[in-house]
């Protein structure tokens, strides 16, 4: 495999983890965040501190990244998730930018110039393993009572409450799990690039993650996977058209959203069961056509 192709695959695998987390928060619990790059930054810097300064193994760095991002999200959730409406969304926006500004000015970790010399621990194999774990855990979560309670919050918050669901608790759970995923993605990114810089985690990155989740289809894990892969590859393929790249990227996203307003997978989940059901329908349709053809022949 060319190292260029491998690089893009690795980047989409890393993106996927952050997207999976955001998919839980936005697609299942119905909360929008424009600060998820902030959680990635916390993950990236925490992991780098563990492996570079304390010379700890990579998996410890990854665990620390998840824990640090989850802890930060818990604080934000505590302050904003009880408030009605869009305060949470605005708070995440402020949080993301605040993290970036703090890191910009914190010279101990390289400041705005960035932090080079992070060991290249991230490999295709550990990305793929974490991708699989990420998908399995998320799929298990959304199909449990915990996941159903989050979905209920998205669907009809007041009804969820009188059905005995502590909506604050389940929003918090979605947020914390989601931030932990972003933290892991940040840790992988830092140890892939071997260099981290605050501006890698700007609002543009947060927005990109949200776009991928919506593009893939809210409430669909397979949609998020597909979205992360397609939208990481697309800009790379478009390098050929250079300065028109972002324009073409934007138009492609808009085009697909017009064609499929609920996203690529919009509410549909790709599972062995749903695929079998789909093929069963196709077979039925084919059988029906064959019957019809036979009838027409018989009639002649």
């Amino acid at each position, binding site marked *: 495999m060319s190292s260029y192709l491998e690089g893009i695959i690795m980047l989409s695998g890393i993106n996927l983890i952050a997207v999976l987390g955001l998919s839980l928060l936005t697609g299942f619990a119905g909360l929008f965040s424009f600060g998820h790059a902030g959680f990635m930054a916390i993950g990236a810097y925490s992991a780098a501190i563990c492996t570079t300064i304390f010379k700890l193994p990579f998996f410890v760095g990854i665990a620390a990244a998840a824990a640090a991002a989850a802890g930060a999200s818990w604080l934000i959730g505590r302050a904003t998730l009880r408030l009605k409406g869009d305060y949470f969304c605005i708070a995440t926006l402020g949080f993301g930018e605040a993290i970036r500004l703090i890191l910009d000015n914190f010279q101990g970790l390289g400041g705005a110039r960035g932090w080079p010399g992070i060991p290249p621990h991230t490999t295709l194999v550990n990305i793929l393993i974490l991708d699989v774990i990420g998908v399995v*855990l998320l799929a*298990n*979560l959304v199909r*449990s*009572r*915990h*996941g*159903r*309670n989050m*979905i*209920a919050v998205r*669907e*009809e918050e*007041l*009804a*969820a*409450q*009188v*059905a*005995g*669901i*502590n*909506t604050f608790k389940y929003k918090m*759970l979605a947020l914390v799990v989601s931030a932990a995923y972003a933290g892991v993605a940040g840790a992988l990114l830092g140890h892939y690039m071997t260099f981290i810089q605050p501006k890698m985690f700007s609002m543009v990155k947060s927005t990109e993650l949200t776009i991928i989740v919506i593009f893939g289809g809210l409430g669909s894990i397979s949609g998020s996977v597909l979205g992360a892969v397609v939208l990481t590859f697309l800009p790379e393929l478009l390098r050929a058209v250079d300065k028109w790249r972002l324009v073409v990227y934007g138009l492609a996203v808009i085009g697909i959203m017009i064609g499929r307003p609920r996203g690529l997978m919009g*509410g549909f989940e790709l599972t062995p069961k749903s695929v079998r059901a789909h093929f069963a329908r196709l077979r039925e349709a084919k059988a029906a056509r064959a019957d019809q053809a036979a009838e027409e022949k018989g009639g002649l």
Partner: protein
Amino acid sequence: MSDILQVRGLTKRFGGLAAVNEVDFNVREGGISGLIGPNGAGKTTIFNLITGVYKVTSGSVSFEGKDITDTEPYRIADIGITRTFQNIRLFKNLTVFDNVLTACHASASYNLADSLLRLPRFRREEKTLKEKALELLSILGLADRKDAIANGLPYGLQRRLEITRALALDPRLLLLDEPAAGMNPDETEQLMRLIGDIRNRFKLSVLVIEHHMDLVMGLCEHIVVLNFGQKLADGTPDAIRGDKRVVEAYLGGGE
């Protein structure tokens, strides 16, 4: 018969408007009680006060002898009270089955780790939850619609689904806010029988807000009449029918 719910001096002000003003009434244990009154009388507001959706201005609510005034809405179900809404609030994009299954959550106790790792406790309890949801759906006559999306159901069945979802929480008191709204006489008749059946089968108490006089008079053993936020009268259907103030305020016009 003892009282399962006691409302004392209940008052709710929105700015200058007293939507509910010093209201007292009881709901009999095991009975079907009605809450009636003209538009804007404060009926829904009383439900919102009982279930903690609104904070009371003054007064108290007690359930089975315990004070539950201003309890958070999500704890009310745990305490034993569930409700439906005047403007149906289903989990719209979920299937009929998932609407009920979601509400069965309180019957399970597996934790987050059990969920994430699909541990044996998760499998065992999930199986029980699914059986419970299916059983409720068949009792309420929705089993053949279980895979339909809630939003696409005909209006009458949406109301029925909302009641099913409330029952999934094993309430001892069920609050129904205008369950017959938008139904034709046939459906209303069916609903009346259904409410009676539910009360007997699940051994619970019901408080129902209703505009259809036939339904209220035929179904309820006890009726509370509200007008402009105040209690006008309180008694058996016959007593209410004969009450002069009620007839003037509410029944008078040919309702």
